[in-house]
């Protein structure tokens, strides 16, 4: 702008000299600016993404909430299996349709009930709540049925029980496909 104003006839060659190269280089400068800001944006994006990625560690120090419970054919149809009750607090029940995992925690005050095979019911030793084989409450003070845990088939064909996800009957969650393992 200012150079134009100051332009005088005597300086013409100078101007021409100054004008022609910028014409070529302006485009290239523009390109360089575009490249520069483009890559800077890219670098920033990589940086932001890397920071986010940093928040997800490769290993976790949390105890696993899930456990492998053996192969389906190790369970008898119609039986309430107690082998995982002591270690994980879970009954695995096999019906003709498939499996479900009941959490051995009474819905009344949190005591662990016992499975009484002869009477085909879970009975809480603390206050006498009783539950059917399915986990539905029918006697005693328990306000709602036992909770189910997520159950599915692991890679190697074993049953995988995940206690971190619970399914509550009264919320209609027993319809959830993950609350029941079909065979």
């Amino acid at each position, binding site marked *: 702008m*200012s150079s134009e104003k*100051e332009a005088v006839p005597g*300086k013409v060659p100078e101007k021409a000299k100054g004008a022609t190269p*910028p014409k070529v*280089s302006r485009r290239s*400068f523009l*390109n*360089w*600016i575009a*490249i*520069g*800001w*483009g*890559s*800077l944006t*890219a*670098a920033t994006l*990589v*940086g932001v*993404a*890397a920071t986010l*990625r940093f928040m*997800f560690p*490769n*290993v976790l*120090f949390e*105890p696993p909430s899930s456990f*492998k419970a053996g192969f389906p054919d190790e369970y008898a149809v119609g039986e309430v299996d107690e082998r995982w009750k002591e270690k994980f607090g879970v009954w695995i029940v096999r019906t003709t349709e498939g499996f479900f995992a009941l959490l051995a925690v009474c819905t009344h005050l949190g005591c662990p009930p016992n499975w009484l095979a002869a009477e085909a019911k879970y009975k809480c030793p603390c206050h006498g709540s009783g539950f059917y084989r399915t986990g539905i409450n029918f006697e005693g003070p328990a*306000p709602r049925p036992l909770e189910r845990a997520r159950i599915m088939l692991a*890679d*190697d*064909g074993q049953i995988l029980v995940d206690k971190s996800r619970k399914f509550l009957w009264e919320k209609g969650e027993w319809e959830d496909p993950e609350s029941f393992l079909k065979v």
Partner: protein
Amino acid sequence: MSTPKKSDHAHDIGKLNVIFGVTCCVLVVVMIWMVLDDYTREWKDYQRQFNRLDMEKTRREVAQARAQVDRRKIQELQKQRQEAEKRIEQKRKDYEVARHELAKAEAEWYEVDQDQRFAKATYDSLRYDYEVAREEKRGSAQKLGRELAETEKGLADLTARLDAATARKDSAQARVNEYVGQIAVIGKEMAGMRFQQTRLQQKVERLQTNPVFYVRNAPMLDFMNPSLDINQYILDNLHMDINFMTIPRVDRCTTCHLAIDQKGYENMPQPFRSHPRLDLFLAADSPHPIDSVGCTSCHLGRDRGTTFGTAAHTPRDAKQEEQWKKKYHWHPMHRWDYPMLTLNNVEASCYKCHASESYVQGADRLNTALRLFEQSGCFGCHKVKGFEELRKTGPDLKYIASKVDKDWTYKWIESPREFRHTRMPQFFHLTNTNTPEDRARSQVEIHSMVEYLFSVSERLKYSLLKGGGSAPRGQELVNTLGCLGCHVVGEPGDNVQVADRRLFGPNLAGMGSKTTREWIYHWIKDPSHYFSRTYMPRLRLSDQEALDITAYLASLRNPEFEKRPVPKIDPKLRDDVALYYLHQHMREKEAREELQKMSDGDKDVLIGQRAIQQYGCFGCHDIRGFERAQSVGVELTEEGSKLLDRLDFGFARIEHTKAAWFFQKLKDPRIFDVGKVKRREEKLKMPNFHFTDREASHLVTVLLSFTKERVPAEARKVLDAREAQMEAGRRLIKSRNCQACHVLENTGGDIFATIADSGLRPPILEPEGEKVKSEWLFRFLKEPSPIRPWLKVRMPTFDFTDTELNNIVTYFASRHHQVFPYVTYDYRFPPEQVAAGRHLFTVMRCLNCHFTGTVPAGVSAEDLAPDLTMARERLRPDWIVRWMEDPQKIQPGTRMPTYYPEGKVADQLQGILKGDAGQQILAMRDYVLTLGGRSQSVPARAGGH
């Protein structure tokens, strides 16, 4: 203003633009480099490789599974399904109607079910309100009560409706099932048949490196659900010591050792191979599941390392080290104190959890090594927690003057191995004390030690032996009575290669050169008179037998050793040594004065006492005057955890590892003094045991097993009540070397090597606990009496205390879950039963091997079986039944024939007791039990069978 301005800018902006552009590009590149550099990890390559191998393997398995599916059956099922579908097609209209009905019934049920649930919830809540109101005596209670009753009625009504609706739904479902039920069943059956195949097929699909694989494992995206992932086990009970505190182990070994806990990968290349002992380790049903025991608790190494180097792998040998350096750029990991144990030392880790057990199942090397550690008496000089209360290894020297003479003792101390192979180590003339001056001085010390020992020794008066014995007969006795279970008779200086247990007692070579006939005679008649805590039992020898054996042992001489000279002691040197010792705790002038006052004998006693004190002889021998002496060696309780820097390698050119140092120390205890300038008292003192390489390497395992790792009680092997009961007995059995003669816990019977005739060997005791009655066993052990009189080998009398006997009896009973070892048996013998038994007895010709009362002549020992008149006293009746059913099951290889293979009755026995095997066995048992002395007098109880 006058001079035209070139530009407003200090820099050429165009140039700056270029620089800016370039810098930004470089920044991008560097950022991407950073991400990729972080992304590249060694373990990912291993996982990719494993995926590939696993996929190939799984593909093969799919093919196998497919081949196993019965194709004809599948075809048939398919045909059936088609037919069923056709049937539905034909009755399409009816089927549609049924389905419509079902949908209606389901809708109706849904509504009623919801109503019922709501009514139930309302009722429950109302009931609560009513309870509260009644309890708080509110006015509304009555009204609520009425309301509750009404709601209950409504609820009952709804429940009935729900039942009806459910019934309707079920019947509608049944009608639909008439059409489609069969198809579902067929489908299910087919799926069941293909279950394995489908599952494996799915696994193959998961293992494939398809685009999904690349997206999951892409840099930056691999936080979501990567298939390449670090595996780890957090072991809350097995902590690692990082000095300020202990932290749980986090074993990441399975990140690369991907199939270590799975069966079926035995032939994979490392690191993908299955663990060779999945029955014992890692598998979920093994006693050491991976999620609670992990890897580094046994193997050591760095738990959190995920590269070959940072996991602190340790090469097996120099060759492997070279390979690793080339292949993995391996180098010792300096910043980790506990590198992995080499495989031969892994069993050392068993000890930190199993220290409470005298015998660790499966850890054969550790068991052997610990026995060697005990027998060598290492704990005598080195304090080790858990070994404090053991009996000293060497003999009591209280009566040494009654057994040997001074010359022999001198030569023995100077170089025991010159006399014979022994556990007694050599203290003198070793690597760092081998100069002529040292030797001369050592001779003074030995001489004085002998003088001291004899000066404090009591003397036993042995009467001269009446009559002589026959050496050949004695040799025969030694070879057959069972002496060879614990002793060998080798050539002097010979290191006999036999099972460890047979070296339990001293090698008998050279006995005649060592002691007198009188001593031998009295010793073998009753060892405890000389050494009250000896493990040597009494063999109840008759006088003649004892004389014969004495004659034989006295004839074993070591002429070389006898010829060795005992050097004369230079009194000047003795004075020097005495002065040296005196000078240790008084000023030189006083010491000289003191020395002046001393007689030669005093000097000997002084030097001898100090030398014994210095070398710690009392660690293995009871010596008068050293009852309260403290052990002289380094405490070894935490030796395995000793940091490498604390070991003085001196100028020894060996590998700088703990194991190598230990090994070298055991092989030549003084080697680390070589090249050093030391005064006598500064020198290493540990004697040379002349361990073989094998022994030394075993002891290295033991040393590595003594760690400072404190395993919490939950993780340690805790003996349950039964095991605790067994443990006391087991310790006795181990300390008395029972397994040298008897097979017990799948080990032992070492003496069998000397008895060719299998019928003449000591009995195998595996089934003993369930076989014999506890009271019989108690009596027998207290006062053994022959069961198989034809045996030459003789069960010794160990003179156990009653407590010890109880421990042993309980051990046997507990092994077989005989909770109550002492039981009263209620014998009832109906005469017809006994008669049938007797008949069977003759038919089966039991008395061909067994006998009643007297040993039949002319039967080879192999074919003889125990006297059946003892059965009543000795055997548990229910065991007899089990024995008869299948003797091989109880004692594999027994010569007792199996009369009822798989419960079948032989043809010639069909006529007896209706050919019922169970009845026949019972009859025979009853008959056998009547054979004993008192049996006839026991009347059959009323209402017997």
